């Protein structure tokens, strides 16, 4: 039984149809990746799940519950964390405040403190920069903060939108290691990547999205070997 299931999702921006019937599922404990070129509809798929984009047709089932078009402040409470593209940390807020915002719905100082410590165990760098404004940090640190902020919710499913964007290869490698680590702790990961090769190599399964529709799916290694994919995304 998949933890997250998308049935024929159609999403529009104004008159433009961004998603033309996306169906996919994510099993509990899996790393699933969604690859495709810019503008193909990867981010829109995540936004449709978390409630940032309005779904016109289709349904989204999360843990047997229909969560289609629930507002984001509700979907996140259910355990779906969405780390948006471009990190989108609160630049004028300190690292600590950013993390506190992640735990906005959590009551109790002790629990928040405890979760913060957990985040620091993954990202010790954040602890050093606790009172620094988020916007003054490097791209890699910002990405760590964005993931850390999402972890403050203790999510069951973590959706990551291009976490490697604009980061140096060595940092990307670190981020990918953390993703694997989080996954081994039992967090389900839905990963969007432009760097298809890297994403597929850590994923259990992958979907290829093109022009708002899924055109191919399979296990990570299957897709890496696929000739079409090689040609289109791996140069």
């Amino acid at each position, binding site marked *: 039984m998949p933890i997250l299931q998308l049935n024929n999702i159609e999403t529009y921006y*104004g*008159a*433009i149809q961004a998603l033309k019937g996306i169906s996919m599922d994510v099993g509990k*404990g*899996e*790393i699933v990746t969604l690859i495709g*070129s*810019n*503008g*193909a509809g990867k981010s829109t798929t995540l936004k449709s799940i978390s409630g940032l984009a309005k779904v016109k047709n289709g349904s989204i089932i999360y843990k047997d519950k229909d969560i289609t078009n629930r507002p984001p402040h509700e979907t996140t409470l259910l355990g779906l964390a969405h780390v948006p593209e471009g990190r989108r940390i609160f630049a004028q807020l300190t690292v600590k405040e950013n993390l506190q915002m992640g735990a906005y719905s959590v009551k109790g100082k002790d629990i928040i403190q405890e979760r913060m410590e957990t985040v620091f165990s993954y990202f010790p760098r954040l602890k050093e920069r606790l009172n620094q404004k988020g916007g003054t940090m490097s*791209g890699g640190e910002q990405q760590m903060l964005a993931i850390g902020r999402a972890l403050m919710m203790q999510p069951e499913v973590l959706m990551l939108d*291009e976490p*490697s*964007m*604009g*980061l*140096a*290869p060595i940092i*990307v*490698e670190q981020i*990918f*290691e953390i993703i*694997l680590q989080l*996954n*081994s702790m039992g967090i389900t990961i839905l990963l969007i990547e*432009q*760097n*298809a*090769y*890297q994403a597929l*190599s*850590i*994923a*259990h399964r992958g979907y290829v999205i*093109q*022009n708002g529709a899924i055109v191919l799916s399979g296990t*990570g*290694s299957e897709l*890496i070997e696929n000739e079409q994919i090689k*040609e*289109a*995304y*791996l*140069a």
Partner: protein
Amino acid sequence: MPILEVTNVTKEFGGLIANKDITLSVEKGSITAVIGPNGAGKTTFFNLVTGVYQPTSGEILVEGKSVVGLKPDEVAKRGISRTFQNIRLFGEMTVLENVLVGMHKHLKTGLLGIILNLPSTRNEELEAEKEAYRLLEYFDLAPLLNEKAKNLSYGAQRKLEIARALATKPKLILLDEPAAGMNPKETKELTDIIKQMGEEFDVSILLIEHDMKLVMEISEQIYVLDHGEKIAEGTPNEIRTNPKVIEAYLGSGAVQLGQRSEASANTTTE
């Protein structure tokens, strides 16, 4: 002489270096591509060339003359036109009007001509409309001439942006991810159009694109940016095999991770 010569251009945004010491040139009549991962500074580079941003240091020459310090409309008058990554059409205006706006700087009529509706004004306007229509025909957009631009499909909007940019009769056109959001069929068509466009309109082309198939098929010269720096340049074949490029953009290093992932995949699925 190259149509565009960029030497040692650097752009800083309050300490953040978006473009570092970039040198690049576009030969007259050629198709040149700039590739690199998202956030590598490609669009910033376009903005520097078109006068939206001013470089912190360095020189930008168009046909041998500096365009540093010029406003975007002045750069446009020097014969540089562009499209935008996040489409910037005049949404409430019709498709034909969008192209007519592109012709703005070539229309000579003055205020008096407009108020008095002089025959010369009317003639010029009609000729412009006809020419705009022909451009739309070229891009297969002619039947949509009276539609509002914002109501067009994604692919059609991208094409309209190119048509509008060509209406300025540029010497160099900058295309920022022209194929983004297009399906393979549309991309194929676009590839052909871009290939022919250079000769048809006597225009040199500089483009940013992620679709490697398109880039490799049409580019004569490719520049690769990463973290604001140029890490490679060369012909498609050179780029394809350049280890630096593969590492930064085309993907590798993943081999190592890949092995680990299989290990972890095994543990979690059990």
